[in-house]
């Protein structure tokens, strides 16, 4: 569904990504992890077409990203940014309707399909109750749900998330990631998420890419990537990795 081939990138003189290649299949939930400055954000910017790579290419749904217009990209891929700026006095419905933009042909009218999609998405995310409220009046967690709803209104095949849980409490962290997992499972959406929290990454993602020093350090199932040895090499911490049966997932405890 999405493939990067030998991506390299730099900001001015500094190299930030070197020869990064990987592939994400349809209906997969991939997590991109790594320490600060490893190149996660740059990689996401390149995969969303906001920044062009120095060398290499990104294939989206079998097509070279450079050959697609912004509108064509937005029909396939939706992005949930890290901290989106929220202007006041737009209602939740207004904001979700904006997700229909790449599919709208007419400049002024809203089709029946637009209305149906918006209604469905609002119901699916479970934000029906505050549909007519102003988005700036909502809490951080609720806002994030609205932004995800807007992304889903694009009817995307690929959903990109940049630190979707960064400023949320534990309850909303679980809720948002549970939602993404459900979308992957039920709707066959491909999700790619940049995330700092290793425990959440292990618990929700099917596959992980660990970036270190601008390169892919390791790549695979959470249990293969999140080993004490890898954590030592990349994060320079002594960590204990256990399997917690009650949540059926890995659990990482940093010792020092």
């Amino acid at each position, binding site marked *: 569904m999405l493939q990067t081939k030998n991506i390299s990138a730099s900001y001015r003189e500094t190299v930030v990504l070197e020869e990064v290649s990987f592939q994400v299949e349809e209906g997969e939930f991939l997590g991109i992890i790594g320490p600060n400055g490893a190149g996660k954000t740059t990689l996401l910017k390149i995969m*969303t*077409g*906001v920044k062009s790579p120095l060398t290499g290419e990104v294939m989206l749904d079998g097509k070279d990203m450079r050959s697609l*217009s*912004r*509108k*064509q*990209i*937005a*029909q396939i*891929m*939706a*992005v949930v*940014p890290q901290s*989106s*700026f*929220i*202007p*006041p*006095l*737009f209602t939740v419905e*207004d*904001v979700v309707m*904006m*997700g229909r*933009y*790449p599919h*709208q042909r007419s*400049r*002024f009218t809203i089709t029946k399909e637009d209305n149906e999609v918006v209604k469905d998405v609002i119901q699916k995310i479970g934000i029906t109750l505050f549909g007519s409220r102003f988005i700036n009046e909502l809490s951080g967690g609720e806002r994030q749900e609205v932004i995800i709803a*807007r992304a889903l209104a*694009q009817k995307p095949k690929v959903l990109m998330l940049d630190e979707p849980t960064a400023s949320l409490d534990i309850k909303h962290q679980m809720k948002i990631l549970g939602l993404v997992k459900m979308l992957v499972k039920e709707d066959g959406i491909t999700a790619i998420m940049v995330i700092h929290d290793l425990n959440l990454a292990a618990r929700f993602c099917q596959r992980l890419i660990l970036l270190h020093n601008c390169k892919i350090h390791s790549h695979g199932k959470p249990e293969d990537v999140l080993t004490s040895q890898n954590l030592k090499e990349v994060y320079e911490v002594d960590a204990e990795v256990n399997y917690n049966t009650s949540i059926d997932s890995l659990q990482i405890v940093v010792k020092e």
Partner: protein
Amino acid sequence: MKSKQSFILTILLVGLIISCILAIMIGPVFIHPAVVVKIWLHKLLGGLIQPDWTAIQETIVVDIRTPRVILSMLVGMGLAISGTAMQGLFRNPMAEPYVLGMSAGAACGASLAIVLGIGKIFGVFSIPAMAFIGATITIFVVYNIAKTDGKVPTETLLLSGIAVGFFLYAVVSFLKLIAPDAVLRNVVLWLMGSFAMAGWTDVKLVILPILCGIVIIYFLCRELNILQFGEETALHLGIEVETVKRILLVFSALITAVCVSVSGIIGFVGLVIPHIIRFIIGPGHHILLPASALAGGIFLILCDILAKTVSQPVELPIGIITAGIGAPYFVYLLRRRKKAISWW
């Protein structure tokens, strides 16, 4: 929500018609509103109404005051729309043609045409054409100075607008210095902004470009709404941000230039009006743009009434009145921003 919006638009439309009639009634010679309406209907419907007014009244209404009120309305609409577009595009309540140096660019182009006769190839259009060239070059210079790593941060944009504006005003001052006395008075009066000399020729000159500009900006209202969430979000939702930006800048420059070329520099209309209207009806550009246009028309018509009546028999330049209202409002915005309860 919908009914509230159409209610406000209706109120504004009625307000616009009333201020038009007021502007035609008021002046050195008072003309009864019924006479104004009758003369208009007479002209529009081609003589269905039996004239019971004097020929002088008809001349005053038809040849002097009506073009003046139409011109001030169009300029008010144009400046308010380009202010709304600039504020929406840069997500900043301080953005408007005057602050971004566009008005200065237009003034500079037009002064070159008046004083040095540059742009004679455009014939009667030399002043507006030079104003448009000046405004367009200015906004792209300002834009490119502010551009860093392919992005245009608002703060840099405003600062570069102010810097370029200073330079252009210096050029205008220089032109004033070298202008012959006969031309100098014209330049000075025109720069301060005035509708005193307005005639039908001016109306014919500006009506098409202003209305075209307004329609094209209105076509981008959906993009303007999404842009409120930032440029990156707009890209992700499928907007070609750079293209939209260029279209908005060029047509705002066109509107500003045309306004400046017929009426001189009238600042702050594009700042005050969109801000107040946004406060009343919210951020959706579908309704914000037309409402701002109507309110801008009303505002400038009323300012022009003040301009002709405050110090009779001498007329005040209208630019002094709009600046007298707009500059304190700008300060108020700054103060409010400091208290962090800003609109944006």
